[in-house]
């Protein structure tokens, strides 16, 4: 397997505040990787560093090349980032949000609309609703659907289960797995629900105050003492 995404000693800062103090991680093509960590550990910042929505230093390679340019350039390379806070265009309609998801693509989108419609059937009825008036969980689903519209090579999810009902958490992770298996989408997921994240992912990283504290195959991490205590609760 080749590495699709590689971070080497990545630093990131908000103004004068350093949030990442040298993070290195690798995501192989076709793999699902989970990132765990306490509140404020820098998980979100790691994803932001990749999509270049935060000031960053260090080396980031995507498909063999150094990642350059702003977020729009990263998106155009096939990276879909569902950000913390979901990045909903609240003033636009559901349909327009989905359309924007496929902004970087040309050609017919009918199939894609149909596909996200099959994942989340309610989207069809709500296509003209102003996205900002959706419920929290609905917005979360819309954000995922929008990312699917992009048909990305690398899908980056920031706490996709946030605000989702239990039934849907399972459903969303099933969809992600399906995309991964059927279409070979590589996934990098930040998740507080470590239980389900570790089940899904092949590899996992644990961040602590802006550094990688632990990493390895998820099966191994599941057995790790501190992971069990802090993230799994047994």
């Amino acid at each position, binding site marked *: 397997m080749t590495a699709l995404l590689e971070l080497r000693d990545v630093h990131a800062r908000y103004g004068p505040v350093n949030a990442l103090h040298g993070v290195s991680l690798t995501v192989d093509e076709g793999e699902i990787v989970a990132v765990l960590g306490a509140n404020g550990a820098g998980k979100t910042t790691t994803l932001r560093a990749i999509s270049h929505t935060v000031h960053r230093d260090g080396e980031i390679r995507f498909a063999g090349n150094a990642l350059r340019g702003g977020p729009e350039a990263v998106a155009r390379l096939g990276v879909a980032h569902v950000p913390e806070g979901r990045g909903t265009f609240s003033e636009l309609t559901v349909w327009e949000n989905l359309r924007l998801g496929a902004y970087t693509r040309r050609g017919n989108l009918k199939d894609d609309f149909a596909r996200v419609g099959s994942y989340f059937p309610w989207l069809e009825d709500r296509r003209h609703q102003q996205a900002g008036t959706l419920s*929290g969980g609905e917005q979360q689903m819309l954000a995922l659907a929008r990312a699917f519209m992009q048909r990305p090579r690398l899908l980056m999810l920031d706490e996709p289960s946030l605000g989702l009902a239990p039934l849907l958490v399972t459903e969303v992770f099933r969809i992600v797995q399906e995309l991964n298996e059927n279409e070979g989408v590589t996934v990098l997921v930040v998740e507080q629900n470590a239980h389900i994240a570790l089940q899904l992912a092949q590899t996992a990283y644990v961040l602590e105050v802006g550094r990688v504290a632990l990493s390895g195959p998820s099966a191994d991490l599941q057995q790790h003492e501190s992971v069990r205590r802090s993230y799994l609760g047994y």
Partner: protein
Amino acid sequence: MALLSLQNATLRFGGIVALDDVSLAVEPGTIAGLIGPNGAGKTTAFNVITRLYRLESGDVTFDGRSILRTPPSRIVRLGIARTFQNVELFPTMTVLENVLVGAHTTSLFEREANVRRSALETLDLVGIGNVAHLPAAGLPFGTMKRVEMARALVSKPRLLLLDEPAGGLNHEEVEELALFLRRLRDELKLSVLLVEHHMNLVMRVSDHVHVLNFGRTIASGPPAEVQRDPKVIEAYLGGELEGAA
């Protein structure tokens, strides 16, 4: 008598029925869980209680009196404080200032120094005294949720409405939250109406659980009972308890 009760509350947005003849009650000194699938109307219920939305029919009473004529900014004076699902902080203000705004209704004749002291105490209570002087924008999501909680608590409410307080917290932090909620109930004699998808938390701390689906009540009762209700399992839980392991 119930501290808060919704009676036959109904609210529609165009074709969407967000609340459909909902009746629920929060008894004084208890934690009531409000759960249901996404879009079931939980947040809408909060917005109705805090008068951000106007009910089409039905009634909301607090302390036995209808609050449907109370303007939204007076709700907190009655003793109802809330947090928001997607976080509504004052981003350009510091954490402390955010909490001080929460003390707006209690600080009219107070000395500024006292108000500050009680705000700082509240921040310590929710465990984020160390970030008091940071700007609210840019805090980790979990911390923002706690700032909201502090802002609500500093107004000395009798009823606290919490909309997904466990969002963005890991397992360990959720444990702390559960302890904290119990303390609020047992030591401060607060009543809490809790919306949460984290079943583990809801089932452990709630005295009573109310389940909505498509704006309609599908179950209501003690946690253990609700948890076994087939309707709830089908519509919401999906057979197994998430995070219970």
